[in-house]
């Protein structure tokens, strides 16, 4: 196994393209190293993208943010300006493992690992984030919810890599939040995760909303029906109950060592309702 740490995106793409699918991108490495150790991954080439300056930067960009794919979770958490705009995204990033893991792990890696339970992803979906992809044929963008195809599978083609994640400009009177359920307070994989991003008008009526769910299907889901339960309401108790029901109804979970179907379906609604309550609180506070 060879290790390369290119200094530019172009070099990285060239290395990946030349490896005939036998290469792995190394960002934080917190998933890749475990796969290497267990033998689940056995690449011939590791392309470390941390030496590429644009991959390491969080850039304010036309009111939104461009988060380089190699920005660590801790760097993002400590970015106070970003956290003020997208607290829900940061809620998710804060839950990606221990402080130690977050010192290495990246939001880009969390996305590319394509786990259905990735804590970073539902809030990105709710926020309407885009994945900025670079490859031998140039650059393209894709909505986060379309990027992951299933467990461990993404829409990346040969030689392509994620360069950044693009967060849009946050709307006025809006708020986002992510909550997950785990048996322990920390160090667990989400049994269920729910993110809500909503926007209010001057009268406190919800004008737009997006709801993302994690760990309840083969990939994180955008749930328009759950968002619809909020839109046009003042996000009162009745609306929250409809949101919960819609979130539960959208689940297509499995039974596994981390939770049962029944549990996931029920708790998805609970998490969505509680996340919405936090999001609306933030929307009201942030103005």
């Amino acid at each position: 196994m060879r290790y390369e740490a290119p200094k530019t995106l172009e070099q990285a793409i060239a290395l990946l393209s030349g490896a005939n699918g036998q290469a792995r991108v190394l960002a934080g490495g917190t998933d890749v190293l475990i796969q290497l150790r267990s033998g689940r991954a056995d690449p011939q080439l590791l392309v470390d993208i941390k030496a590429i300056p644009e991959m390491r930067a969080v850039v304010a960009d036309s009111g939104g943010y461009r988060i380089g794919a190699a920005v660590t979770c801790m760097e993002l958490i400590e970015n106070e300006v970003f956290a003020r705009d997208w607290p829900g995204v940061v809620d998710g990033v804060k839950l990606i493992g221990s402080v130690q893991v977050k010192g290495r792990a990246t939001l880009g890696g969390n996305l590319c690992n394509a786990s259905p339970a990735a804590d970073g992803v539902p809030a990105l979906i709710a926020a309407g984030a885009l994945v900025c992809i670079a490859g031998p044929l140039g650059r393209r963008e894709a909505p986060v919810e379309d990027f992951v195809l299933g467990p461990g599978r993404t829409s990346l083609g040969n030689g392509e890599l994620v360069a950044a994640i693009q967060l849009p400009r946050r709307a006025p009177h809006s708020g986002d939040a992510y909550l997950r359920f785990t048996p322990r307070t920390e160090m667990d994989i989400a049994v269920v995760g729910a993110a809500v991003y909503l926007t209010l008008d001057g009268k406190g009526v919800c004008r737009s909303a997006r709801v993302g769910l994690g760990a309840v299907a083969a990939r994180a889901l955008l749930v328009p029906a759950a968002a619809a339960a909020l839109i046009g309401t003042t996000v009162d108790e009745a609306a929250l109950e409809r949101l919960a029901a819609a979130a539960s109804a959208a689940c297509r979970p499995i039974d596994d060592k981390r939770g049962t179907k029944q549990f996931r379906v029920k708790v998805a609604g609970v998490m969505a309702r509680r996340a919405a309550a936090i999001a609306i609180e933030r929307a009201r506070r942030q103005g």
Partner: protein
Amino acid sequence: MSRNHVSATVNGDQVEFLCETGQTLLEALRDELRLTGTKEGCGTGDCGACSVIVDGRLVCACLMLAVEAEGKAIQTIEGMATGETLHPLQRKFIEHAALQCGICTPGILIAARSLLERNPNPTEDEVRYWLAGNLCRCTGYHKIVDAVLDAAREMRGG
């Protein structure tokens, strides 16, 4: 198998070593540099026994490749005391009986130091959440949390 040459700083000292690409920083520290104070409890980043500080960041040495250490400044438990003088955290851990078997202790001390460098006055909850990535099976964490809070107090000059 060709090996990678790495030069880095460990506890302030310039070091060089050779490593296979798949070798972790933990393996390099323990097997190449013979710094065995950093422990392996799981190899998957779930226990924190291998906690070290790399360029100011608290990380698990088992989740970082040794080749990635090129040019980095690494701090391990072996560099925590100054000569014969223990770091206040080390002293408080002994005084508060915050260690039993001691296998998790180096990692917890490194993690606690990283916390206090960022937050000199943490609450009990902040200590507990910061240390959530460091498993201890002996103590129930009670005396560890006590020791960290007391060390913080002393380091603040109170």
